Structures are given as C-alpha cells and as structure tokens.
C-alpha cells in the first residue's frame, strides 16, 4: 500500500488552506484503509464462529439431506473466498445481502430501522451528558466549598462503577412501575410517540457517561486555570467571567470531545444491555439474536455499519477539533 507510506513528518507547518486540504485528504485515506481492515476482519471472524446456521434454522430433527439442501440454497457450501468475493461485490453496490434466518428480509431493512433507534438514544445521551457535564464539572472545579466538590466527585465515581443494566432496572422499577411516569419498555414507531419510550433508557446511559465527562471537565478546567495565560488575561483587566467563558470553556471542550470519541464504541456496547432491559428494537437486540443464530450477513452488516459510524464520528470530531484549536494545525 504505497499510498500510505509517508516521508518523515515536516517539523514546520505550512500555513493556509493547502495544509488543511492535505490533512483532509490524508485523513480520508486513513479512513478508507481502516474500513477495509474492518470489513475483512468482520468476514473472517464471522465465519470462524463454530456452529452451523442451517442447524439453528432447521432444528435438531433435521435430516442431513435437508441440512445440505438448505446450505446449498444459502450458498454456505461455497468456498470461503467465493463467499467473500460475492459479499464484497455486493458491498460495492451498497448491497449488504439478505438475512439467513429471517427469510426474505434484506440486511439493510433489518439494520437501518434498528440503527435509527440506537443512534437516537446514543446521540441523545451524548448531548445530554455533555450539556450537563460542563456546568457540573465547572462548579466542581471552581467552587470554594470543598464538600460540594467532594460530593460531586464521589457521586460520579459511584455512578461510573454501577453497571448500566442495574441503573436501568432500578429506573424501571421506581419510575416506570411505582410512579407510572414512563412506559415499561417497548417502542411506539412514530416520531412523537417514541420520546415517551426514550427518556428513561437515555437516563440509564447518561448515568454512566455523565460522571466520566464531569471528571474530565473538572480536570481540564483545573489545569487550564493554573496555566499562565489565564492569569495573564485577568491581570490585563479582563473580567473574570469572560476569561472563564472564552478561554477555559474552549480548552475544556476539547478533551471532552476526545473522551466522547473514545467512548462511543463502549457506549454502543452498553446500549445493547440497556436495549435488552427496556425491550427497545435497537441494534443491540438484532446483534444478540443474529450472533446466537449465526446469521452471518446480518452480523457482518452490523459490524461494518457501526464501525463506520464510529470512524466517521471520530473524523468529525477531528475536524471540529482542528477548527477550534489552532495549535493542532501545526502538528502534522
């Protein structure tokens, strides 16, 4: 892959749009390589799974003849390379294939509605956590009342240590069952109605992500405050709150983005658990059932699509980061 070989990084920046364009091109290239690796790994991994989907579909009473016939129909008897070729060929046309277990449904019709549900909750959780983390983290860092800081930090640590399914179940019991303030799981199917089913699972996820973000914000606010340019700004007579908003917040936002980016993969993992507890028709439910049934095309599809989202998410964060923080433009 000669295109990825690069010469030693230049020490000095080349200012202006040419370096940005070059950076964008390089990042896009990296993205493609990453995705290709993921597709290949997904295919290999899925076909290494022991167990025969034909047996799962037909059950234990199936005769060897019927098993063989089914596997012929599903092209499972073709060579691995042949199956890989067919799959890649389909991918290039945007065709993710058809489900083995759910006869007649294409992988795309199975994945995308489910993905919509999951990403809705994940994005909502990220936004809510970020919005809440900034004021709380700021308060913890800036307060003179030591107990408040201590309380916030201990609360955060405890919350992080509690697995999301426990939080989810407790919420179900207390809020949905006892108080009747939310439905006990399920999905409406129409945009407006879905909000009623969303907010409780979102809280379960926020309970896990928010404390991490609070601690990150607090840490970076503390650090930034100690740095000399803040003192320089205040000694120049700039009002304290202006310093707070423009300098500190901006510098705290960046580690926040980083941590969120690193956590997206894990967040999707915990969403799987939360979806099980709240019976949400998300990608987690689909993933579990397709892995246990060895529904190869669906598993591959899920891996590729979620990985793509994570990679793209990190890319967007990168772009945002680069735009906000001029220091990074000089790093090549």
């Amino acid at each position, binding site marked *: 892959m000669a295109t*990825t*070989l*690069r010469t*030693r*990084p230049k*020490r000095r920046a080349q200012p202006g749009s040419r370096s940005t364009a070059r*950076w964008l091109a*390089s*990042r896009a290239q990296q993205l493609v*390589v*990453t995705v290709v*690796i*993921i597709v290949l790994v*997904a295919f290999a991994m899925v076909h*290494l*799974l*022991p*167990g025969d989907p034909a047996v799962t579909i037909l059950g234990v009473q199936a005769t060897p003849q019927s098993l063989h016939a089914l596997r012929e129909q599903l092209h499972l008897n073709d060579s691995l390379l042949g199956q890989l070729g067919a799959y890649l060929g389909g991918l290039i046309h945007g065709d993710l294939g058809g489900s083995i277990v759910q006869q007649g449904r294409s992988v795309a019709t199975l994945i995308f509605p489910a993905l919509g549900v999951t990403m809705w909750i994940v994005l909502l959780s990220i936004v809510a956590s970020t919005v809440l983390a900034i004021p709380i983290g700021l308060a913890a860092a800036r307060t003179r009342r030591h107990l408040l800081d201590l309380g916030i*930090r201990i609360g955060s*640590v405890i919350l*992080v*240590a*509690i*697995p999301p*399914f*426990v939080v989810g*179940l407790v919420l179900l*019991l207390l809020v949905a*069952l006892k108080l009747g303030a939310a439905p006990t799981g399920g999905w409406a199917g129409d945009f407006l109605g879905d909000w009623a089913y969303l907010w409780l699972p979102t809280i379960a996820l926020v309970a*896990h992500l928010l404390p991490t973000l609070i601690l990150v914000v607090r*840490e970076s606010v503390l*650090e930034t405050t100690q*740095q*000399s340019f803040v003192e320089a700004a205040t000694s120049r007579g700039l009002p304290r709150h202006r310093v707070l908003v423009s300098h500190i917040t901006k510098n705290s936002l960046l580690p926040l*983005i*980083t941590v969120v980016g*690193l956590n997206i*993969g*894990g967040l999707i*993992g*915990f969403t*799987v*658990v939360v979806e099980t507890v709240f019976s949400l028709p998300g990608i987690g439910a689909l*993933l579990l059932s397709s*892995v246990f049934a060895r529904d190869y095309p669906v*598993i591959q599809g*899920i891996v590729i699509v979620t*990985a*793509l989202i*994570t*990679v793209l998410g*990190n890319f967007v964060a*990168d772009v945002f*980061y*680069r735009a906000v*923080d001029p*220091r*990074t433009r000089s*790093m*090549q």
Partner: protein
Amino acid sequence: MTSAIEHAAMPATPPPAEPGPSGLRQARRHTRGRSSAIAGSALVLAILAACIIVPMFSPYSTSDFVGTPLEHPSGAHLFGTDDLGRDVFVRAFVAGRVDILLAITGAAIALAIGTGLGVSAAMARRSFWDSLLMRIVDAVIAFPGVVLILALVLVIGAATSYGPIPAGVPSILIAVFVTHWAVFARIARAQTLAIRDGDYIQVTRVLGYSRLRVVFRHVLPNVIGPSVAYAITDAIRIIVVISSLPFLGAGVEPPAPEWGNMMYEGRVYLADAWWVALAPGLLLAMTGIGLAVAAEGFTTWASGTRKAR
C-alpha cells in the same frame, strides 16, 4: 500524521516550564497526590484482602444450598440467600476475588503491550510501521467491542475451568485485552512523540546511546505516568464491562460467583429480594471509589514529578 484527537488524548500534557517556588513548597509539589494514590490503592487492596480472607471464616461455601431461597438478611446470613438458597454474603466476597484480579490483570496486560507498541511505533526509524500501527489502532477502536466479545466467547468457548480459575475467564481476558490495548498505544505514542524530538532525547542520540537504552531509561519513565493513571481508571471500566457480560451470554459462567453474574441473576428479584443484587453492587461501588481515588492521586503525583524534570 497525528490526528488531532491523539494530540488531546494525552492527559496532563506538561505545560511549558515556569519558574516555580523554591525549597519546601517545591518538595511538597512533587509529592502532592501521593497520599491519594496510596489511600485509594490501600482501599482496593483492603477489599481484595477481605475477599480472600472473609470467606475463610464463613461456615458456608459458595455453592451449597444452605437456606430457604430468597431469605431476608439475618444473623445467620448477613446478606440473605439467593434464589437457590445459597449464602449471598460469602458469594459476594468470593466474587470480588475474580473481579478485582481480572480487572488488575486485564488492565496490566493492556497497559504493558499497548504502551510497548505505542512507544515502538513512535520511536521507529521508518514511519511505515507507525502508520500501520495507527491504522490498526483506529480499526480496533472503531470495531464494536460487543461483537468482538461475543465472537471470542463463542470461538474460545465458555467450557472449561482451569483449576481455581472459573470458566469463561480466558475469553474475558483476551476480549478485554483486545478491546483495551489500542487506547494505551495511542497515549504512549502521543507522549513519546511529544518528547522524541525534544532536546533531551537529542542529547542522548548525540551521545550515541543505543535506541533500546533510550527507550527504557529515558522515554518510558516520562511516558508511563499518564498511561498508569489511565490504566487505573480503565480497571473500573473493565469491571463494569465484565459485569455486563452475562447479558450477552458471556462473562464468568455460573455457578462461579462474580459481581456481574450475581447482579444479573439477582435482577429478577430486585423488587422484593433486593439483597441478592445489592451485596455485589455495594462491593463493586466501593472498589470503584478506591480505584478512582488512586487514579486521581497518581495523575497529580505523576504530573508533579514530570514538571520537576
């Protein structure tokens, strides 16, 4: 080409050197955070010690059916019994051994190998290896960890327990390692890059030190600080991930107790037999606090030490 994210991924980048206070205050600065680090570690070790020692004093074993199912906590059973009539108190502590040891081991392996790879990539003569590693790291971080864990459990099999090691552990360790090493690689690489082209390292080059010596005696000590701090917080994350695994049909297999599978099996009885899930949850939360305090202390201590150089 460093991504902007990697640049920010390094926690506590040493700020530009500034004239500091002298004498005693300086000395105090270098050790600030050390007491937190010690206190936190002490708490975790205390819990681990309790997990090893307390069951030895209990009249019950973790697998015998010693009472009526779902009994309230009482003098005989400090945390009541579970749905099969087993003593929850003793199980919760035995479970702690597995969780704490798995977390420490998992984090340590990910730390060692990830950091090693990250430093090597940054110090490599040919940037090809650096690129390659970073693309693999990107792919690993983007790959949904859930799928990897599910696949690993199925491929490796939850089957056997090796002596005192409960069933399911090998696949957990491998899964944890595979999903966690990448971030360590990124951190280590970013840290190494930051100091690689600095004067300090250039001097060693001029002096003719071998690359290996430079890595071990000069690069690593400066790089390891943030990595270890992240490793300690990672330990908490690892415990939470392990405890959520039973939902995916993975994790430490019953009947071997583990905080996660105890909470998972106890979740059905949360409404009226809450003690089954509470005992492991409590111990888990306390361990989390200890690890968090230790991590924070370590970060402060390490950055203070680095500033001093």
